[in-house]
Structures are given as C-alpha cells and as structure tokens.
C-alpha cells in the first residue's frame, strides 16, 4: 500500500514538474522586449504590440550585425 502511494506521489510530482517546464519553455519562446528604467520600473512589450514593432527592428539589426 505504501509503495503504491509513493509511486502515485512520484507520478504526480513528475507531472507537475513537466507542466512547469512546459509552461516555462512556451513562455520563454515568445519574442519580447524588457525595458528597465533608472527608477527601478520595468516594462515588457510582447510581440504584436506597437512598442515591440518599434523596438524589434533595431534589435534585429544588432543581432544580424553581430552574427554576419
């Protein structure tokens, strides 16, 4: 009985870990710009927003210059 319970808990833990990993991976995969200000505030602009449309092109050119 104890062995079954331990196996059940282990399976639950593995599922929770897999779910957290998947959530993290899918969140990290989104293109975004994090802007930090001297007063300590931070704003995130995700792809599809007007701000991202303004910030992404120069950043993409930087990436291209660095890797060309």
């Amino acid at each position: 009985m104890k062995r079954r319970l331990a196996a059940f808990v282990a399976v639950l833990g593995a599922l929770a870990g897999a779910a957290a990993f998947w959530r993290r991976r899918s969140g990290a995969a989104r293109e975004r710009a994090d802007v930090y200000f001297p007063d300590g505030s931070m704003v995130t602009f995700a792809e599809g927003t007007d701000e991202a449309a303004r910030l992404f092109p120069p950043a993409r050119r930087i990436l291209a210059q660095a890797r060309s």
Partner: protein
Amino acid sequence: MDAAKALADLVEISSQIESAVLAGPDGAVLGSTLADASRSEAMAREARELLDAAAGPAGPPSQIEVSFHEGCVFVVTDGERLVVAVTGRDPTAGLVFYDLKTCLRLSGEDERAAAPKAAAGGRRRKKKDEEPEAEGEA
C-alpha cells in the same frame, strides 16, 4: 581599465555573451569584440537607436533586453556611454546585465581617475601661482 581590457574580461567571464561593443556618448566605438570596425559602428548606432526608441514617460531607459527565437540583444547605459551585447537563446538575463554593468563601470574608471587628477593639478598650479604673492605679503 581601458575599454578593450574591460570587454576582453567581459567575454572571458560571461560565456553567454557572444559579442559586445562599447560606445561613447557621441556614438564613437570605444571597444569591440568584433574584428570588423564597420559592424561595430553599426551595432553601436543601432543600440543608440534602440535606447531612443524605448524612451518613455519615465525618461530614457537604463537597460534593455530584447529576446528573439534566435538570440537576445542587451543594451546597458550609464546615461552617456553604452554597452551592447548579443547572446544565444534563453540566457540568464540577471547575470548578463550584471556583467555588462561591471564592464561599463570598469571601462570608465580611467576617465574618472583622470578627472580628479586634472582638477588637482589645476589646484596645485593655482597654489604655486599664489606662492610668490604670499611671500611678497610676508
């Protein structure tokens, strides 16, 4: 520490940083890990453009991270000079920012050290100039 040494230390310490460029307030490249000067200048110019584009009601930003599927771009500024760096996917952003800020601080130490010396030199010269006058009074 000069810009070249600060950048060399940066890429040695941070394995996540692929390349980095340090630029002055006028956009002039102070140091770069890239061999090509024109690419370094272009990176510095685009980084300045990125900072300008990100300025909001809170004023100009102090640091930016732009994450793409193929890699990330980091820009850190002290208000005058800036350092821009490129990393691979999913870097540890906090560590990269810390390393870039350290690089910016270390590369500015020479200038900061030179400024008080120049000021002190100026004062010393003034004191010397005053000496004959003081002797004359005594």
